């Protein structure tokens, strides 16, 4: 799957990259897309941020968030 991917496809690959190792062709296509697409770079950072946020949700102290 080398070539031009859409933003929808790009966000899908960013998400799957959090769950499995992407194939070489997928990584290349995603990287190329991200270079030219500001919206997808932002969305990608936000999807990665979600992972941190949910992990911290497990750790937050009860007395600050009872």
């Amino acid at each position: 799957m080398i070539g031009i991917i859409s933003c929808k496809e790009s966000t899908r690959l960013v998400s799957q990259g959090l769950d499995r190792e992407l194939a070489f062709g997928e990584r290349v296509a995603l990287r190329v897309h991200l270079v030219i697409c500001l919206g997808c770079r932002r969305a990608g950072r936000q999807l990665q941020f979600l992972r941190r946020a949910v992990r911290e949700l497990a750790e937050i102290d009860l007395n600050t968030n009872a």
Partner: protein
Amino acid sequence: MPPAADFRAQLEALRPYLLRYASLQLRDAAAAEDAVQEALLAALAGQAGFAGRANLRTWVTGILKHKIVDVIRRQAREPVLPEQTEDDDFDGLFRRNGHWAGRPVPWADPDGALEQSQFFRALELCLERLPARTAQVFMMREHLGQETAEICKELGVTPTHCWVMLYRARMTLRECLQQTWFER
């Protein structure tokens, strides 16, 4: 206090934390209480297993994780209506050609958000809005830290279906946080 009673009191003090932890996973207050109860009983019975370990909360949380997975496994055996699997959603987000309908805007100070308890409240509200099954897969992945392969096996779904649900969960949460927190 004798050592046994002391241990019991320490466990009991953890109950609110454990309940909160289980509730995030199970979205069913009764099931969460059952899982916590089982975990506390198992911890009490297995006190010897704790001997020498540094952190009681970490140890009991580990036990609770297993109890939560047990509950999820039992629930998975109950018939559920299949949720849609086609990825024809996010119609408002993308144009027909797959490009953004509106370009995502950057989030101001996400690190700062992680310092605020209100942010986590907003995150929980967004999680509650997800469809039950989608939320469950997402929480097993991100909260329990399970591998996708394990989750698929527990729930009896294909990896592809798992990835679709995780993608949908993340995109929906992203939108929700955008609207309820970052755009305020």
